[in-house]
């Protein structure tokens, strides 16, 4: 007996949640997300410069905010965003001169950039906490 069409499981056209994420798609989305985060980060850069120009009290408020756990999480995210956007940006510049478009190469460079960004973030954090000095 035939179901009414509304009850039948209809085939869906593929969309974001259906596709297995290819490396190139994941790095493209991450590049944009990191760029947006870094844009917001320019407000913190302005805050740091204003605090340094204003005085010891203002600077202390900034430094204390940066050092508390929430500040550290935000800064960790920004350092990763900067590392990823920088490395992946170089990957984009290589594409701009017409190289690295083969699927294998593009996938490999994407994984390389992701791994490097995580390693660089960890290195910067260890350095900032005086671990690697």
């Amino acid at each position: 007996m035939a179901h009414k069409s509304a009850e039948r499981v209809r085939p869906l056209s593929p969309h974001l949640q259906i596709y297995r994420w290819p490396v190139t798609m994941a790095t493209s989305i991450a590049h944009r997300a990191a760029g947006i985060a870094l844009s917001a980060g320019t407000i913190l850069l302005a805050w740091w410069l204003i605090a340094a120009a204003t005085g010891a009290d203002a600077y202390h408020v900034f430094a204390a905010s940066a050092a508390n756990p929430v500040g550290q999480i935000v800064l960790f995210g920004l350092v990763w965003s900067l590392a990823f956007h920088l490395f992946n940006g170089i990957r984009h510049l290589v594409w701009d001169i017409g190289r690295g478009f083969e699927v294998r190469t593009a996938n490999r460079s994407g994984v390389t950039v992701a791994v490097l960004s995580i390693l660089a973030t960890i290195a910067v954090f260890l350095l900032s906490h005086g671990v690697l000095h």
Partner: protein
Amino acid sequence: MTGTQTPLARVEGLGAAHAGTGHFWRQRVSAVALVPLSIWFVYAALAVVGADREAAVAFLHQPVNAIAMALFVIAVLHHSVLGLQVVVEDYVHTEGWKIAILLFNQLFAWILGAVSLFALVKIAL
């Protein structure tokens, strides 16, 4: 590709978006500038992290550091405005909202830039 273009349209070279390659090119120029500048910025941040205001002021008082920081602020805001503009154009489809957000994007960056550079001049001089 140029078959249906008028001679005027061809010499203008602006294409369907009426903007040519201007946006693309400025994005690449600022990107290339930011490769060394952002590496320098990480070095600068590590040089003053955990230190008090005196150390940060002393660092930015050095002419080379003040100039590099000024270049970083300018390049990063320029690059950020261009990047956010593309995001807005991609996802905001209501014309009024799009123009309003693009205006805010541009004007807010000018304010951030003016404030940041003023603070930097005050420290460096």
